[in-house]
């Protein structure tokens, strides 16, 4: 059952809170993949990363492939997290990542190599800031957009 919230949007099924270490891990894997896209110039690798983002953004964080890898392979060694964070901003950041990775794939595959490079470079920047500094560009934008949305309403 979904109920409309105060802003009138239908509420999507909520993702359970996330392990912040898993979010950092996923960002690190994403950083490596996007760096490989730029070095290899492979549009198909960019498309694969876009698919990874799409699963997290549109199916839900529990289907995020790097998150699944983290839960299966790494959590058993680390133990449970000390704290958790809300999934919604992270999921939103995956949507932003999807847009850039998809543009990158389209650019490389269609021969618009400059588009491929620029879009992938932006995505790499955001992923690296998250992996290395824990700073989530997409999450910050989520807070900002929420503000703009309510200011207009």
């Amino acid at each position: 059952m979904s109920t409309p919230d105060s802003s009138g949007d239908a509420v999507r099924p909520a993702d359970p809170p996330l392990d912040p270490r898993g979010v950092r891990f996923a960002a690190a894997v994403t950083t490596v993949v996007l760096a490989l896209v730029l070095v290899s110039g492979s549009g198909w690798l960019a498309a694969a990363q876009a698919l990874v983002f799409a699963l997290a953004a549109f199916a839900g964080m529990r289907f995020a492939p790097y998150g699944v890898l983290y839960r299966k392979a790494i959590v058993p060694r680390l133990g449970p997290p000390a704290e958790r964070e809300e999934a919604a901003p992270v999921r939103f950041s995956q949507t932003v990542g999807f847009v850039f990775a998809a543009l990158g794939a389209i650019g490389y595959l269609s021969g618009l190599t400059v588009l491929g490079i620029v879009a992938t470079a932006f995505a790499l920047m955001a992923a690296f800031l998250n992996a290395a500094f824990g700073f989530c560009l997409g999450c910050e934008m989520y807070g900002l957009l929420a503000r703009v949305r309510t200011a207009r309403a």
Partner: protein
Amino acid sequence: MSGTGLVVVLAVLAVATAVGFVLRSRSGRVREVTEPTSPNGWVLADARPTADERVLLLQLSSPICTPCRQTAAMLDALAAAEPDVRHVEIDVADRPEVAVALSVLRTPTTVGFDRTGREVLRISGVPRHAELTEALHGVPRA
């Protein structure tokens, strides 16, 4: 292999590292405000200082924001320990006009006001505890 791609990777990582260090060094820092342009904080918070209260910490948060909750927990504990400090948290989704009035673009941002409602300090991100308590002791009784 793409030589251009490799150069782009190295350039992006260098720029992102610089940006990351700048963000990290600013986050949680207490910035003292000497020439405030903000409106009266107690009015924004819809509150009046009691006889004991010396400082208002007005925290601006957004609905889904993990560092906002960490900040709120820290400032609540601080206000409980120091009776002359009041902590008020405002959700910018409920009252976006407060964010506009204080020119706040990021959450959490905490703005400190003295007893008369004059802005004295500002922190974006989760405050550094030691730095904040020290700055608070420097706020005059006004």
